[in-house]
């Protein structure tokens, strides 16, 4: 132990220096020996931690140890152990802090160590797992390789079988061919034999024929009682060249007759078919769209001139068919035109199909999922609506049933009573309304009548006043005709009412010419009064009561006129 310490202590200062070098790159201390010593030194420290506690610092080398520790700590970045002012005194606080820091460090290091160990374990387990996987995959690979090999084997076997079957088939075909050949050869052989036999037979027949002919016995005869006439009654004709020619002619006539008959039928058929084709063509033309300007479809652009061609052809063909020609060109034209029309129609139909399918696909592609969802939503909504409607219908039906079905008389009577009551109430309300209105109307009428009465009274009063005033005027005029000014002034006084003004005007007009005679003046006055009364009557309210008063007696002449 002592050796250890002696070794370490002298090395310490240099070690601290080196560490200083290591930590701060300012000073350079080239001492390799010291380095070596430094390298050796930390190991014994770590190996024997417990012994080092006591081995490091003894009573003798306390200061050295402290200084060493200070150096180490300062190099590590800890605050100095010594106090600031005095280098020998130890700063307890800083020591404690340093110790605390060291403990913290130690704990951190332990933690990190634990973590590292945990990671290490994890990695180890991962490794194991991966290795297992690898082993499995390797097994699978092996298995699949074996499978492949097996399948290949099977494939080979199947191919072999296939080849065998092909071979068998070929063999069978060859056999069939062979048999056919055999049959053919046998047939020829038989034919040959048959011919040979036939020739022999013919020879025998010839022989026999000769014998028969040579016999010339009487038996070969015909015994007829009498000749019988021919069917058509004519005599038998000699066989001459003419008859031969005639026969040929007849034969050809018969043939020609047959052919003509055939041809007639065929012509009729052809004509009918042509008609049908024409009709078809016309219908096809009508089916196709008349004019289109779609830049996409070239075919349609091409149809316009073609259509016009077709129409021309149709016109031509119609003309020609009327003549019932059946020459090649007409036929070809017709068939070609029909074919063209048919192609156009087909294109048109295909185009329509494409459009429809495109529309479908577009609708589907654009909102593929969404449309479905929409569909579903809509269907759900519709279903709900349907349910609601159904419920409504049910309730309505129930109500209707309730209404329609009179369960009891009482209830029906009650119901009826209810209705009657309702109606009665309604009617009563209406009556009330009517009565109120009636009252209102009556009130208004009364008020109107009162107003009319008042008006009448007022008029009366007014008339009386007027009459009195006129009297005065008249008197004043007759007495003081000179004082027209007075009159005017008087008239000025009572000049507010209209009839007065009118009277005045009349007076002023009539006054000058008619000055002389008073009677005619009076008459004129009377006339004017009449006029005025007339005017006043016309200007006042029409509803006049017939309550004539006495003061208007002198106007008795006026009244009946006026009224």
């Amino acid at each position, binding site marked *: 132990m002592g050796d250890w310490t002696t070794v370490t202590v002298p090395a310490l200062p240099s070690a601290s220096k080196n560490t200083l070098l290591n930590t701060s790159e300012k000073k350079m201390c080239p001492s390799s020996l010291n380095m070596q010593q430094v390298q050796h030194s930390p190991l014994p420290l770590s190996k024997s931690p417990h012994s080092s506690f006591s081995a490091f610092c003894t009573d003798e080398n306390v200061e050295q140890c402290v200084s060493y520790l200070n150096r180490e700590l300062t190099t590590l970045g800890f605050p100095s152990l010594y106090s600031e002012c005095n280098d020998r005194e130890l700063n307890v606080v800083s020591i404690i802090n340093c110790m605390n820091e060291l403990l913290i460090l130690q704990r951190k290091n332990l933690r990190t160590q634990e973590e590292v160990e945990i990671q290490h374990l994890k990695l180890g387990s991962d490794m194991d797992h991966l290795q297992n996987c690898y082993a499995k995959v390797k097994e699978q690979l092996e298995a699949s390789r074996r499978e492949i090999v097996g399948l290949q084997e099977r494939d080979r076997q199947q191919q072999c079988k296939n080849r065998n079957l092909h071979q068998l088939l070929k063999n069978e075909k060859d056999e069939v061919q062979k048999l*056919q050949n055999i*049959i053919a050869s046998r*047939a020829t052989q038989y*034919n040959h034999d*048959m*011919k040979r036999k*036939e*020739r022999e037979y*013919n020879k025998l*027949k010839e022989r*026999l*024929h000769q*014998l*028969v002919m040579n*016999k010339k*016995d009487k*038996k*070969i*005869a*015909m*015994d*007829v*009682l*009498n*000749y*019988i*006439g*021919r*069917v058509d009654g004519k005599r*038998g*004709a000699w*066989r001459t060249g003419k*008859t*031969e020619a005639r*026969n*040929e002619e*007849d*034969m*050809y006539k*018969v*043939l020609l007759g*047959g*052919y003509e*008959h*055939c041809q007639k039928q*065929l012509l009729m058929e052809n004509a009918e078919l042509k008609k049908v084709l024409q009709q078809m063509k016309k219908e096809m033309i009508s089916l196709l769209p008349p004019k289109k300007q779609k830049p996409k479809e070239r075919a349609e652009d091409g149809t316009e001139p073609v259509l016009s061609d077709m129409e021309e052809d149709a016109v031509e063909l119609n003309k020609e068919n009327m003549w019932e020609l059946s020459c090649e060109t007409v036929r070809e034209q017709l068939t070609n035109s029909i074919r063209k029309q048919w192609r156009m129609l087909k294109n048109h139909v295909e185009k329509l199909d494409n459009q429809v399918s495109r529309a479908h696909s577009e609708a589907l592609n654009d909102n593929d999922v969404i449309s479905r969802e929409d569909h579903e939503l809509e269907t759900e909504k519709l279903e709900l609506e349907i349910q609601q409607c159904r419920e409504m219908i049910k309730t309505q039906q129930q109500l209707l049933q309730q209404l329609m079905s009179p369960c009891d008389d009482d209830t029906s009577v009650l119901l009826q009573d209810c209705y009657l009551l309702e109606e009665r109430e309604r009617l009563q309300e209406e009556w009330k309304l009517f009565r109120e209105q009636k009252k209102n109307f009556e009130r208004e009428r009364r008020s109107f009548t009162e107003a009319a009465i008042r008006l009448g009274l007022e008029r009366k009063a007014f008339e009386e006043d007027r009459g009195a005033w006129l009297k005065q005027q008249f008197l004043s005029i007759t007495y003081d005709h000179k004082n027209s000014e007075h009159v005017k002034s008087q008239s000025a006084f009572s000049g507010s009412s209209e009839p007065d003004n009118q009277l005045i005007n009349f007076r002023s007009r009539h006054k000058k010419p008619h000055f002389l005679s008073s009677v005619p003046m009076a008459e004129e006055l009377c006339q004017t009064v009449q006029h005025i009364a007339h005017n006043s009557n016309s200007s006042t309210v029409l509803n006049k009561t017939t309550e004539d008063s006495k003061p208007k007696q002198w106007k008795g002449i006026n009244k009946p006129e006026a009224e």
Partner: protein
Amino acid sequence: FSPSFSIDHMACKRTNPKVYIIASCVQYRLIVRDVNSLQILQLYTCLDQIQYIEWSSDSLFILCAMYKRGIVQVWSLEQPDWHCKIDEGSAGLVASCWSPDGRHILNTTEFHLRITVWSLCTKSVSYIKYPKACQHGIAFTKDGRYMALAERRDCKDFISLFVCSDWQLLRHFDTETQDLAGIEWAPNGCVLAVWDTCLEYKILLYSLDGRLLSTYSAYEWSLGIKSIAWSPSSQFLAIGSYDEKVRILNHVTWKKITEFEHPVTIANPKIIVYKEVEKCPRVETESLALPPAKAQASSLFRIQSKYDISQVPVSLQCVKPVADRANPRIGIGMLAFSPDNCFLATKNDNIPNAIWIWDVQKLKLFVVLEQLYAVQFFQWDPCQPRLAICTGNSKVYLWSPAGCVSVQVPMEGDFQVLSLCWHSNGDSMALLSKDHFCMCYLE
């Protein structure tokens, strides 16, 4: 309609085409009867057993051929005293027929050595050498002007066209057939159909002047044409072959326009299938009186039958032919067009119980009649689309577009209808059994 029964008769009978007379022969006697009353009008005696009788086209003469003796006797209806006998002598006689003008008789000698044309008005004889020994070797046109004769020289087939009026050889040409099996004129007289042996499917069409118009061959190596039929308007030629198909050629291009198949199963619901169904009436043994009267006995055991419409799909009875025999019973054996050109009746020998009726306008199968027994013979009514069928039992079956009916022939004993023959006016028909015949009158 009321069938009537008659006395024993043998072999053949013929219906006079114009006049309402029937001729029937019994052994060596020729009996001429009135159709409506079946009264004997004339009775002739021939020298030997008559094998074949034929009316002349103007219905004035009947020829009776006796093949064994090689004699043909001709009788006149108007003059019972008139007689004519044609003796072929040692040449023998194989076939005999009238010419269309009713004044010549064509005799085919034995071994088909030659055809002798005997003229009744000039008593002259002509010989035609090397006639072909086939079933339909001679064909007359419908109007009776021309005759086509199949010949074979040096192992090659030829056709000779004769003018019937003076027997002048009009045309003589060879055909490209291996072994001519038959010839037939079209009803319009312009086209001659020539078909080859059944070993090769080939049909040739020649025009009246001998030009080859067209050939048609459906397939190779299998058995070929079995029967053909012209439509009455000459528009179609129906060819029935051994492969159970009927091919229709049209007269304009002579190309096949359609093929009719005769499958065993009919699945198309638009086709009506009439099936003959038997109903046995119950016999009450208690009420039987012994011995039972003849009429009663026959009616007791008479089996009723009627037609039922079977539901489609229907499976028909099929007969598998013996494979290693010649002339197997397969293929379309009989073809006939209805006189109005609307229907075609065919019989497939594979399915012998059924008759197939095709609609010519639509070229589709129209009706299938399924019988209980194999169909022996059928013939269209010459005037309307009515088909009479006999299957070898004692019933005759009639079909028309309105429906079909099965009629029992009321006869004592067993009357097995083997063949039938319509009268030319379509009112009546003669039903033939092995040695009896009876008349059937239709209303």
